[in-house]
């Protein structure tokens, strides 16, 4: 079975600035492929190159079996795209927007009627079909944008941070829809900076500073962090991080929610040393235990291994 997306040494520079640096990966059909990384890591630039919105400086991208550089028209027919910001026409009504994109994708007649009804139903906009889009709430707008992106039932769907700014419940509903598409055989290529969303993906690509630093299933990525991870609860997290950061046993200390996460060289030594360091700094050690790494921990660890701090 051919890959839905196949990328080889894709590179894009803007003047001296390298936005995407020799990125290569493949996405299988029907896969939910996550693109993870801080702002400015090169996610959006990569998606723009895959959707034909931006020409690569170097390298090759095959989408739906066609070279984006050479057969951009065919590629565009086979993909749906939803950008970071809401970008349907705010001064058209819900129905008029659907009809416009129907016309652009060549979906007309009975099929358009069927697809329109499906979108209105899916987005919960059946009662607001004649409202001007600009007046809708952000959650509705986003579902309408998703509807317009899949109007022509494309085999591949590109979503660039589709849920930014949306409340958690809407976000959850949005992901239910993404699962439905994937089960129906659509390949979903989604970028996000919400770590909990990344867990929903079949596979994850981590980007930092224009480079792809890891690519695997979420569980395997976790296993890739071999150093033990400890969670510390203390009365002053900031001072605790400060006190522990320079200690030889601690590789990385970072505040994480209500706790402090410590990546350490040796679990037993750390369990001994950490409470002592805290005591001498006048801090309480309320709890210290080993935990499985979250994706964020993985990300921090991988960036450290690459020898640099994440951008953003």
């Amino acid at each position, binding site marked *: 079975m051919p890959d839905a997306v196949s990328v080889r040494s894709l590179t894009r520079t803007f003047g001296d600035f390298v936005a995407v640096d020799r990125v290569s990966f493949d996405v299988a059909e029907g896969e939910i492929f996550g693109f993870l990384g801080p702002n400015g890591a090169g996610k959006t630039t990569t998606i723009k190159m895959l*959707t*034909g*919105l931006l*020409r690569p400086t170097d390298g090759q991208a095959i989408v739906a079996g066609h070279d984006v550089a050479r057969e*951009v*028209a065919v590629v*565009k*027919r086979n*993909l749906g*795209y939803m*950008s970071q*910001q*809401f*970008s*349907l*026409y*705010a*001064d*058209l009504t819900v129905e*008029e927007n659907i*009809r*416009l*994109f*129907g*016309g*652009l*994708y*060549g979906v*007309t007649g009975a099929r358009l009627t069927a697809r329109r009804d499906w979108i209105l139903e899916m987005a919960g906009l059946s009662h607001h079909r004649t409202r*001007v889009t600009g007046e809708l709430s952000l959650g509705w707008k986003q579902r309408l944008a998703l509807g317009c992106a899949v109007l022509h039932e494309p085999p591949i769907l*590109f979503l660039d941070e589709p849920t930014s700014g949306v409340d958690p419940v809407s976000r959850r509903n949005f992901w239910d829809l993404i699962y439905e598409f994937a089960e129906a055989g659509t390949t979903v290529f989604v970028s996000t900076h919400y770590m909990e969303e990344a867990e929903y993906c079949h596979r994850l690509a981590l980007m930092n500073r224009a480079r792809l630093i890891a690519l695997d299933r979420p569980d395997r990525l976790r296993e890739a962090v071999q150093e033990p991870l400890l969670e510390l609860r203390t009365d002053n997290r900031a001072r605790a991080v400060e006190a522990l950061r320079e200690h030889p046993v601690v590789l990385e200390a970072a505040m994480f929610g209500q706790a402090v996460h410590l990546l350490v060289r040796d679990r037993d030594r750390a369990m001994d040393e950490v409470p002592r360091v805290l005591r001498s700094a006048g801090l309480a050690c309320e709890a210290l235990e080993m935990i499985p790494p979250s994706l964020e921990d993985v990300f921090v660890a991988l960036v450290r291994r690459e020898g640099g701090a994440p951008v953003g």
Partner: protein
Amino acid sequence: MSLTRLLAISRKELLQLRRDARSLYLAFILPLVLLVLFGYAISFDIRSIRMAVLDQSRTPESRELIESFAGSGYFSVVEHLETPAEADRALGSSAVRLVLIVPPTFAADLASGRGAVVQALLDGADANSATIAQNYAEAIVSGYSTRAVARGRRVTLPVTAESRVWYNETLESRNMIVPGLIAVIMSIIAAMLTALTIAREWERGTMEQLAATPVHRLEIVIGKLVPYVAIGLFDVALALLVGVVLFGVPFRGNLLLLGLLSLLFLIGSLGLGIFISAAVKSQVLATQVAMLATFLPALLLSGFIFTLATMPIVLQGLSYVVSARYYVAVTKGILLKGVGASVLWEDALAMVVFAVAGLAMAIGVFRKELA
């Protein structure tokens, strides 16, 4: 190219336009406002020029001379001055445009046959009005002079000039302005409406969404052109109707030819508008550039009101790349002169070049972003 996609773009453009009251106003009401203003409010026809008189002669002859100014219909005497110093104030405050000074020796000089001199001080600030006033004054004085020296004898001048004015027999500014105004209105439509159309899509991010669809740049450009061309042609018809029916501007040529050439002009101007809009990608800048690149040249360098022949050579040269120049020649030619393709073919050819160039630029500018 797909007709479905093209129509989808055109339809969208029309829907957006329909919701945009101000663009509608610009497209349909402004042309009427301009026609009414140009047709009724303004005119270069100078009548009853305000003048003052300083009569130092105070004789029947001097009164007769002044009377012939007032009786001509071109001047109205609004002030009688007592001292030469008052002339300064009268002209300076723009109370009058001309001061006629008749010297104390006027009657005696005239009677003696030595020849009398009268002086006209003109407010030269407005050179155009002053020139016209000067010509009228000269004609009046010369007429009176001939009568005065002949002393009742009938004097026929050995040669006279019979003027015949072609195309606009009564020399009404309105007849000259309405045809040119059509070109200016078309340029406003082209510049103002299309300058925003692409820049707005870039600023709001909708262009990116369009770019991700299979739509071809040719379809975007033509899809966007269609509604504006329709509006433009409607406005030409409206202007003609108002001009011919209401203002009595003659229409002597071929309507079909005018329609065809208007279409060419619109395609070229709209193409340029779209090019500007897509090239600068910002509404504020696009409107500025469009004003400088289309509307101002159409107003100034088209021969609409200001004669090209009297401009500096640089501007005359520049006017050859202003498509409105050719279109004004066409509208004046067809409406007033009643000439056809045999005379206008050069202008038509130039407009074909502009239309092709405009379209090519509009389509070319998307090369980077779109298929």
